[in-house]
Structure formats: structure tokens, C-alpha cells
């Protein structure tokens, strides 16, 4: 079937289109490059007066893996309350809508939606691909199964390394880089991931030895290596084995006042290798001022400008109840005293990493929370290049992904932002530079930050743009003075060429889950040495770690889509 999307104002940074009036043609799930004869067109959508972009991509959202399950186990009363509050009165719920062999139903929504609800909410906002940033190797099967049960969107994951005894042992022993490279390549391939993430390098492991802090240049209490060395060797490995996505770095000292110094040290530790600093808002804190907590956003923005090897996503804080979930048990444990409600789960996992779940409510009248909110917006507005700063709330850590439309309005609407600033804790507003930042994001900036740039950074060659041959993930918006409303309810969302959302509501299903992955080459001569180290470390066997394409497709129920390495 040939579909014509006629006359929309198209924003596609890849082709340098910024509101150009264009006709797009979709056939067999892809965009066609040539202009067909009118008689060939089967379905025509008149999009005049509408804004057209590629499907959006979220490169950091915690929607799969055991930590969301743990959070749901911890907070049944909040989830049930959220469901009751958000279910529209009188709406018939039914027993679910058949969706490509699965079911979608309304369920606990808000800050921790179930997998079916998360997929639905994402596609209804025009997102078509989302990436789980914290896949533990021993949990990879479960993570991919949960992602496969998140319908309507493509998914992928980053495998967590850098606190595992295998890697720390290799670094302690001073092995050659080629063995590190083989290890990283094996772990990415075995876990069917597309990237590598390091979380508080060495710190999660050190917490198991009862160490409560570890800065970038502190030696690990047992292995002796520093977080800086872990980051440098991993970032180099990621580059040398050709992963498109740079090392995804959750830095040291998450949430600690004064951690801006750790963030700057992390950038230096990378030694010029490409790194992506994630949820950097949580790592941009000074300790100036009467309360010992201040913004380091300007320093981060300056460092990003000076270091072309660095990209960031923000991890914007949005006010309200949420739950923080992170592999960073060292700092999650520190946060248990501030848990709201007062309960938490801290888990050491399989000599690989950990998981900390701490519920939290961000309050706009609390100084620290209000300044966190302002720091996030400062980062967005101070980093000039929208292809190097990405829109995330680190769902659900800073707030749920469903707040993205509100966040986009904060970026695009200066007066709306000023009104919001006036409502936060006055000392926090005064401590922030936000009132002096006049910049407003344009639609082209949004298309860059949420489409073209994440696709490039992840190596998704045929996503995130509308060129000939691209996957036909297309989102259509009706312009509105209320930008939040515009981005909350696209008029049309096409996923792989099929219309699945109309006027913000799901109207159809898609057939199969897709997992984006890569296949770096593994030096076969080094596998036996790796096997020895696996056996000595006492975690899962190499054999059980490996998820084959066949297992992914037939048992986990997702089709691998393999992207080339660099």
C-alpha cells in the first residue's frame, strides 16, 4: 500500500528541512524517495497546516529489567492510588485490546506504568523507539522479555559494565586492552545490547565492601583501580570495537552537593575518548551558597563546549511523586533516609552491579528540589548545540516520561517558563540563572534533540529522519499555542508505515517487537582467557549469558535488528 502524507511542514534536520512544505510517501514500511503517480497512491492524508517529524527516540528511559519490577513490588499502594486517580470517570475499560498477540489494558499509570501502558503512552506521544539504559548481564533475558512486552515501540538496551568483578579483576591485573575489548564485545553481543553503560564506576562494587563514597580518582578498596581508569579503559574499548554509541556514563557521586568536580574529572578521565554523560543534572551540583547546594550547569555547559567527545542527556526533575531506580546502590543507599514513603530496596546483584529503589517526591517549594529543576533547564538552555544535549527525565528518576510535553513547553515557551520559575522556592529561583536565559527552543531544535541526534548517537541509520529508505516512523502534530497540548496529542503516528495513533489515541496495533542491537567482532583467540575469568568470578557462566538471535525471536519474542559498527 502506498500512503501519501501531503503538504505538511516537515522538520527533518538530516535533510535540513525546517518547516519545508513537503509530500512524503510511505510504501512497505519505508519512506519512498521518488514521487509516484497520483494514481498509485492508495491512501492520502492532507497534512496541510500540520507539523511533521520522524518518530521520536528516547535514549534513556528505565522501562525494562528487574528494577521496575522491584519498584512495583515496593509501592503497591501508590500504584493503586495512581490508577484510581487517573482512570477517567465512567470510561469503559473492557478486557483489553488485542495487540499483535499481546494485550493492552489500562493499568497503574503515572510514574511507573506497566509495560503495556508504557508502550501505549509512548506511542501516543509520538515516540517510536526507546532504550533501556541499565541491562544487567544476568538479567538481560528478563529485561528483553519485558521490553518485548512493551508494545508499539522499538527497544534496545545498554549492558552495565564497570562494577563487575571480571572487569575489575582484569584492570587490577593490568591486562592488555585487546582483552578488555574482547570482553566488552562479548558482553554486548551475549546480552543483545546496543551499547555499554557504566554506573558509578567501581563504586557499586566498593559498596559491597562497605565503602560509602568513591570519587573519580580514589582507588577501589580491593582492586586498587580508580573509577577514572575504569571509564578510560571502557570508553577506549567501546571506541575500538566500533560501537556507534559512546560509553554511556552515570558518573560518580550521584546527587551529592559539590559533585560538579567529579563530573569534570570524569570528562578528563575519558582522555578524549567519546563519552555520553547521562542524567547530568544529577551530577551538576556545586556547594556554594548558604545551604551548600548550588548550580554547576554553567560549568558543565562550558565543558561540553570545550570537549567535542562529550554529549549529555539531562535527567530533568519534574515536580511530584516518583520513584528513583538505579544500579548505583552506593548512593541510593545514602538516599534511603529521604525516601518518600519511607521504604526502599537495595540489592547486590551477581558480582555484576546492583539495584537501588528509593521512592521520592520532588517538591517545588523545597529549595534543593526546586534548584534541581532549574539546573536541568539551565543545562538545556546553556548547551548551544541541540545535537549534543538530549531530552530525558531519566524516567522515572527525575519524573515520568509522560511529562515530556510539559518539558518541551518549558524549553520552547519563555513566558511559560517564567511563570513556572515564579512558583518555585524563591531562594532557588534567585540562586539560578534561569530568569536570565531568554533562549527558546525551535521546532527544528526539538526535532534534532528528540529524533536526528539520538538516532545518530545510537547508530540507528534508518531511524530518526525522513530520507528515502528510512523506516516510516512518522509523527504529525497540529500546531497549538499550548505547546504542551501539541506534543501530548499528535494527530497521527505512523509506526513502520502503519497508522497506529489518531488524535492522540491508539487506533491499531503492530505485529512484532524489535530489538536494536550491534555485533562487534570478538577476537576468538581470547575467548578461553575470558572463560577462565568468568569461571573464577563466580557469576553466571558465559554459556548461560549468551542470548542467541533464535532465542530472542522464539522465546523472548523480539526480532533483532542489527546495526553496523563504526
Amino acid at each position: 500500500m502506498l500512503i501519501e502524507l501531503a503538504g505538511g511542514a516537515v522538520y527533518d534536520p538530516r535533510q535540513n528541512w525546517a518547516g519545508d512544505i513537503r509530500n512524503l510517501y510511505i510504501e512497505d514500511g519505508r519512506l519512498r524517495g521518488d514521487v509516484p503517480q497520483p494514481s498509485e497512491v492508495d491512501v492520502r492524508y492532507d497534512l496541510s497546516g500540520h507539523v511533521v517529524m520522524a518518530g521520536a527516540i528516547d535514549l534513556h528511559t528505565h522501562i525494562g529489567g528487574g528494577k521496575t519490577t522491584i519498584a512495583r513490588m515496593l509501592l503497591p499502594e501508590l500504584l493503586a492510588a495512581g490508577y484510581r486517580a487517573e482512570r477517567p470517570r465512567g470510561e469503559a475499560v473492557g478486557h483489553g485490546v488485542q495487540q499483535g498477540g499481546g494485550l493492552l489494558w489500562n493499568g497503574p499509570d503515572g510514574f511507573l506504568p506497566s509495560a503495556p501502558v508504557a508502550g501505549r503512552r509512548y506511542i501516543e506521544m509520538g515516540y517510536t523507539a526507546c532504550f533501556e539504559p541499565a541491562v544487567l548481564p544476568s538479567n538481560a533475558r528478563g529485561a528483553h522479555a519485558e521490553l518485548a512486552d512493551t508494545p508499539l515501540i522499538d527497544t534496545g538496551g545498554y549492558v552495565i559494565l564497570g562494577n563487575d568483578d571480571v572487569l575489575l579483576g582484569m584492570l587490577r591485573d593490568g591486562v592488555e586492552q585487546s582483552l578488555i575489548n574482547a570482553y566488552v564485545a562479548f558482553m554486548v553481543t551475549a546480552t543483545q545490547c546496543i551499547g555499554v553503560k557504566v554506573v558509578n564506576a567501581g563504586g557499586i562494587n566498593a559498596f559491597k565492601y562497605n565503602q560509602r563514597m568513591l570519587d573519580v580518582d580514589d582507588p577501589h578498596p580491593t582492586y586498587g583501580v580508580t573509577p577514572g581508569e575504569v571509564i578510560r579503559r571502557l570508553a577506549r574499548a567501546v571506541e575500538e570495537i566500533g560501537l556507534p554509541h559512546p560509553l554511556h556514563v552515570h558518573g560518580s557521586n550521584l546527587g551529592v552537593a559539590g559533585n560538579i568536580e567529579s563530573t569534570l574529572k570524569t570528562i578528563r578521565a575519558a582522555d578524549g575518548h567519546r563519552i555520553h554523560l547521562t542524567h547530568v543534572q544529577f551530577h551538576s551540583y556545586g556547594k556554594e551558597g548558604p545551604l551548600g547546594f548550588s548550580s554547576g550547569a554553567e560549568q558543565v555547559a562550558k565543558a561540553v563546549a570545550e570537549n567535542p567527545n562529550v554529549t549529555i542527556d539531562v535527567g530533568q526533575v519534574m515536580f511530584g511523586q516518583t520513584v528513583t531506580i538505579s544500579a548505583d546502590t552506593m548512593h541510593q543507599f545514602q538516599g534511603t533516609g529521604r525516601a518518600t514513603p519511607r521504604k526502599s530496596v537495595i540489592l547486590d546483584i551477581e558480582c555484576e552491579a546492583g539495584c537501588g529503589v528509593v521512592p521520592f517526591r520532588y517538591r517545588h517549594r523545597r529549595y534543593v528540589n526546586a534548584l534541581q529543576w532549574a539546573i536541568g533547564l539551565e543545562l538545556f538552555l546553556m548547551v548551544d548545540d541541540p545535537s549534543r544535549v538530549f531530552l530525558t527525565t531519566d524516567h522515572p528518576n527525575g519524573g515520568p516520561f509522560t511529562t515530556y510535553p510539559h518539558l518541551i513547553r518549558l524549553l520552547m515557551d519563555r513566558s511559560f517558563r517564567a511563570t513556572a520559575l515564579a512558583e518555585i522556592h524563591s531562594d532557588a529561583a534567585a540562586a539560578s540563572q534561569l530568569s536570565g536565559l531568554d533562549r527558546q527552543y525551535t521546532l527544528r531544535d526539538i526535532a534534532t534533540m528528540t529524533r536526528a541526534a539520538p538516532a545518530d548517537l545510537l547508530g540507528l541509520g534508518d531511524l530518526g529522519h525522513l530520507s528515502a529508505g528510512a523506516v516510516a516512523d512518522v509523527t504529525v502534530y497540529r500546531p497549538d499555542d499550548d505547546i504542551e497540548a501539541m506534543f501530548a496529542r499528535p494527530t497521527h503516528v505512523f509506526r513502520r508505515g502503519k497508522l497506529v495513533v489518531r488524535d492522540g489515541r491508539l487506533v491499531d496495533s503492530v505485529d512484532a517487537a524489535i530489538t536494536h542491537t550491534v555485533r562487534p567482532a570478538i577476537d576468538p583467540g581470547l575467548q578461553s582467557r575470558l572463560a577462565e575469568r568468568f569461571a573464577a568470578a563466580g557469576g553466571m557462566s558465559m554459556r548461560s549469558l549468551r542470548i542467541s538471535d533464535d532465542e530472542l525471536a522464539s522465546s523472548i519474542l523480539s526480532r533483532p535488528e542489527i546495526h553496523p559498527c563504526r
Partner: protein
Amino acid sequence: MLATCPFCPLRCDDLVVRAEGTHLVPHEVDCPRAHAGFAGVAAESARLSSLAAWRTASVLAESIADRVAGAASLRISGTIIDITTARAAVRLAAACGGVVDAAESVSSAAMRRAIEREGVVAATLAELSQRADSVVLLGDPSDECPRLVERFLAPSPAPPARVGERARRRFLSLGESRIAGLPGERYTHIEVARGDLHRLLAEARGALRVGKTDSSGIATWLADATYSGWLWSSEALDPLAAGTLVGLSTELNRERRAVLVSLASDTTLRSVSTWLSGFSGPVDFGSGAPQLLENSTPAELTLWLQPYPTAPPPPLEDTFLIVLGMADAELAERADVYLPAGVPGVDFASSTYRGDAAVCLPLHALLDRGLPSAAEVLGELQLRRTDRC
């Protein structure tokens, strides 16, 4: 051939099995659960083969479709050990407006409630094995997980993974009998009746908090641990003991490390049900959308998943009982309807969560006996239900 053993929460993935005709026998492993599990499967296969040929998933589903569709209330429960079957169970419950409810042990239920109230500091088995200088066992979990001592407890942790200076791991058990296989010189047993466990734990917690000793000596023993790990049997924890244990572990982690390690049999269904419905615990789809069910009650019709003959049978309840999977002769006789299906990890491949909940392992297809899987039958039932709706 190498297999992942489906017969206990340890899910040993180093099992070597040998085919003898259409039966499998564990090779060079001294595990009564594995031997009994495979023997039970072989015996039931032989019994069923002598009765009738295998039937397809479609035929099996058709035989109960009207009964399921006509039931005023449906409960899907049992021991569901693989992701494929768990997905199918939740989806059928959603399609029928039924309840899906993992068969959880006394300890699992108590610990789930305690975590919902207070949270927990926990770990997986490899962490316990590699780090812990001290291990506390409540009841005898090795009775249900026979290779626990051999695989995870007996080898003392070695540097650099080991936490603390103690070269050899020591053990403390609290329960009604000593645990076999633990080294005598490093093993202390305190006789405790099940109902008294929470009192001893509470006393230890109080003593630790104020830096004093307790009458049992538990607090003193714990104060000398650098990284302690706690395990329990499926019957050891009542709600009071579970709550006290969670509080005690929190207390211990103020100055040292202490972790609880669950060995539950319901982790796979619990995980899948939680990500699909949003809730952990029994989930009711009766109103269309999933809702957490505070207390699961008998339904008019129970669809019980029995993955292998040695899995725990359903409780005696006033319900129309359909058993799907592989039952022993006694359960087959007791069921109102018995639908034989293949064993996950024997007849078909899938994935499974180990009892400590985070580690997800492959289950391999080892034999092709032509049996349908339980998931296929549940899927066929869902299709028929959808058609009828």
C-alpha cells in the same frame, strides 16, 4: 547434554543429563530433587503413553473452552517457572476477567508483605557465595534446594571478592534441626521453634541497636560479621519473623553489610505478572483493568499449572480443578480435568528466573516427545475466549 534444572529455585545451569530412550537421567550430580524430578517426568510420561496418544494444544483447549468461558470466576495459579507460560497465564486471565495468582510459600508471602511495608537490603546467590564471611540460615533451605551448600555455601569466598578478613566462612542456623553438610567447627546451631523466631530476631535487633549482647548470642555473632547473608526455608518465616528480619537487616547495614537472599519458587510468574499488570501479588482482571487483590480466594474454576509431577500440588479447595502440565497419578486422579502438557526445560525452551529473582536463565528443550506446552494450551484458550467475546 547440558541443561538448566527446572526442579528447584536454584535452577542449576551446570546439570549434565543423559538420554535413556525417551527419558532423561542426571549424570554425576548428587541432587535428590533433580533425580526425583526427572524420574517423576519419566514415570508420568510412561503412564500417559500407555493410556492414550498425546493430544494437541487445540484439542486440549477445546475440551475445556466452554467450561472456562462459563465460569463465574476463574483463578489461574500454580507453579509457573518459565516466562512463556507466565505470559500466557496473565494474558488469559486478562482476557477472561480472572485472577492470576502465584502459588507462593508461607515465607514468600510473609516476605512480600514485609517488603511492601519496609523495603529490604538483599542480594543474589553469587554475591552471597563470593562475598559473605557469615551466613545465617532460618530453617533448612537446603532441604528444598539440595545443591545450595555444594554450589554456594561450602566454598569459602576468596580474595579479592571476599569481604572481610575471615578466611573461612562461618554459619549460624536457627531452626528445629541442624543442617547437614555444613562444617562442624564453623557452624553454630540454635534450636528455635518456628513461632519463636521473630522473638529471637527482635531481641538481636534490639541488642545491636544499643550495642549490647542478647541471651541467644545472635547479636554478638552478627556484630562480628563483615558481610552476612541470610537464607530461609519456604516455611520458616511467618509475617512477624519476616518483618523483624527486614528491620534487622536494615539495622545491620548502618555499619556493615548484611543481605537477605530469597529462594522462592514463584519469582518467574511474579516478575512477568508484575511487568504486565503493574502489580506484584495476586492480580484481578475482573473489572477489566488489573487490580491488586489483597487476599486470593477460591474461584468457581481453578486452572492449576503443574510444570512437573514433583511440584507442590494445589491446596484442597471447593473449586472445579483443571490441572494443566504434568501431574503425578494422585493429582491426576484428584483433578476434575487433567490436561497433560510438556515440561519447561525438558520438552520446550523458555527462560526462567532463579529463586533470588534477578538472575534470568535459559531453559533448554532436551526432548521432543510431541507434547504441547502449557503456554500453547493457554494461548488456544485465549483465542477461543476472544472469539466468544
